[in-house]
């Protein structure tokens, strides 16, 4: 395993992946440490600077919005919220996907066939509508957001877990566990899941940017994070409305979102390639 890990790390250390890792780390550090450098609050209104442009020497580095709120503080808050939603909802889809995929792959036969048909049918539908439904109809709070986004993201995850499970299932150690009298639930939890988790985590890295994009999309529509909190999506929506007079309100959060998504996508691709050892 340590040899494999070293090999994976060696493959990961290509220029592109390291660049993406640095950008991600930089954004992360910036969102965590930024508030220490900046005295302005998220909701604090500065009446003397309403919709003022960015200036590195002034009180508001990224400028302010129409209500005089500091855009530096709000962009950091937005990035933090978007990242948190991305990670949490990915975790939800990971748990769902592992549970469903491992059961389908281990059970095999008709159960597997039926479970996969359900996944196929669901992936053929415009699931974004269901997310919109859930967020509009059942209150716009964070938990509904995590739950509904995660509930959509698990489909591909379940497919991948199932594929991995099928390849592990015929191995001798599973047979040994069966002979030893272990129940199916225990075999899945103790023997299958630990053995498929590697590639699955690699794929999960790729779902984080997808979910961040979905969350910003919903927030952009006004269905996600609500005022006075901000996510990158809500900031971009506000900025798009003000772009004639205050283009920085669109450009700064837009650049943050774009940089974050590009970096996470490149990183996820590289991680998947690096961990794709053809065995597991």
């Amino acid at each position, binding site marked *: 395993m340590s040899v494999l890990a070293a090999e994976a790390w060696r493959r990961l250390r290509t220029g592109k992946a390291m660049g993406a890792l640095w950008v991600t780390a930089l954004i992360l550090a910036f969102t965590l440490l930024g508030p220490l450098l900046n005295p302005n609050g998220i909701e604090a209104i500065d009446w003397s600077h309403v919709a003022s442009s960015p200036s590195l020497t002034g009180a508001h580095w990224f400028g302010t919005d129409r209500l005089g709120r500091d855009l530096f503080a709000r962009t950091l808050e937005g990035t933090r919220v978007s990242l948190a939603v991305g990670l949490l909802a990915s975790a939800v889809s990971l748990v769902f996907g592992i549970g469903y995929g491992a059961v389908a792959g281990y059970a095999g036969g008709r159960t597997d066939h039926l479970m996969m048909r359900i996944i196929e049918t669901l992936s053929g539908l415009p699931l974004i509508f269901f997310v919109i439904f859930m967020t509009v*109809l059942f209150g716009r709070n964070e938990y509904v957001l995590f739950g509904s986004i995660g509930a959509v993201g698990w489909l591909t995850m379940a497919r991948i877990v199932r594929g991995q499970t099928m390849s592990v299932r015929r191995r001798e150690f599973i047979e040994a566990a069966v002979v030893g009298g272990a129940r199916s639930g225990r075999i899945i939890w103790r023997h299958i899941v630990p053995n498929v988790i590697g590639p699955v985590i690699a794929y999960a890295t790729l779902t984080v940017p997808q979910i961040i994009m979905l969350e910003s999309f919903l927030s952009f529509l006004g269905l996600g994070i609500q005022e006075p909190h901000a996510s990158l999506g809500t900031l971009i929506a506000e900025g*798009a409305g003000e772009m004639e007079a205050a283009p920085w309100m669109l*450009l700064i959060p837009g650049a943050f979102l774009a940089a974050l998504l590009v970096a996470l996508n490149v990183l996820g691709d590289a991680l998947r390639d690096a961990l794709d050892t053809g065995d597991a």
Partner: protein
Amino acid sequence: MLRYFLIRLAGAIPTLFAVVTIAFFLVHAAPGGPFDQEQTLTPEIQANLQRAYGLDQPIWTQYTRYVAGLARGNFGPSFKYKDFSVTELIADGFPVTLELGTLAMALALAMGVPLGTWAALRRDSVGDHATMALSVAGIAVPSFVLLPFLGLVFGIRLHWLPVAGWEPLSVAHLLLPVVALTLPPLGVITRLTRANMLEVLRSPYIRTARAKGLSLRAILLRHALRPALLPVASYLAPAAASIMTGSLVVESIAGLPGIGRYMVQGALNRDYTLVLGMVVIYSTLLIVLGLLVDLLYAWLDPRVRLHA
């Protein structure tokens, strides 16, 4: 082929039925009703409105009525756009949405496949790296960031194109929204084509074709393109879904009179019939498209045999 198509089409009906059922009960289970926001209404008028739209009936009756109407192609009246039926609203807006989506899809294919092939032929050149970098950016930057940005540059700063608005048959009004919708699928198609083209070009039968002295053009068109396009074909349904999703925001940013805006508006207004109509339309589109993709797949890959 026709038999296969019809059997699959019939198989889609239960799926669609399940979707409608789930959506119907989800919408009705939500707190709030379509006439809640009109606070000036007296209770009597409220009750009359409820009765006029059949909302006073038990939910089961409402459901059977709705499904019966749907089977006859009747989507019911809109609760918010009074005097309009959902069928009329969708019929008005759908051509715009369809035009937008078809253009985006056609552009993404027409540019992505040649671009991916070109990048594969010039592997590891500057052009290849630039193409790949651009396609990652295209995949990663969502259309609701891209479109306002394009509007800022080409509309507000350069005054070349209108920022928003719509005129029939006006290319200028459609250009930016189409570009914003095209880039994400374009990025994916370029990457898919490149990756598979590289694999196909390494295979022995291509080497044989080269050894026989065939021109590059003939090798690509006659031998390499068809197998290299298989993954692209299976991406078409997800691509359509992403364009549909994108059109929800793109239409509202660009002020286009399509049906995209009805989804969010309808859900916010508890306009039950409008939302359900949208779900039916988009689900049907995706299901039929998935079916067409399967047919295309069988045509591209002679090893695939269709059997229902």
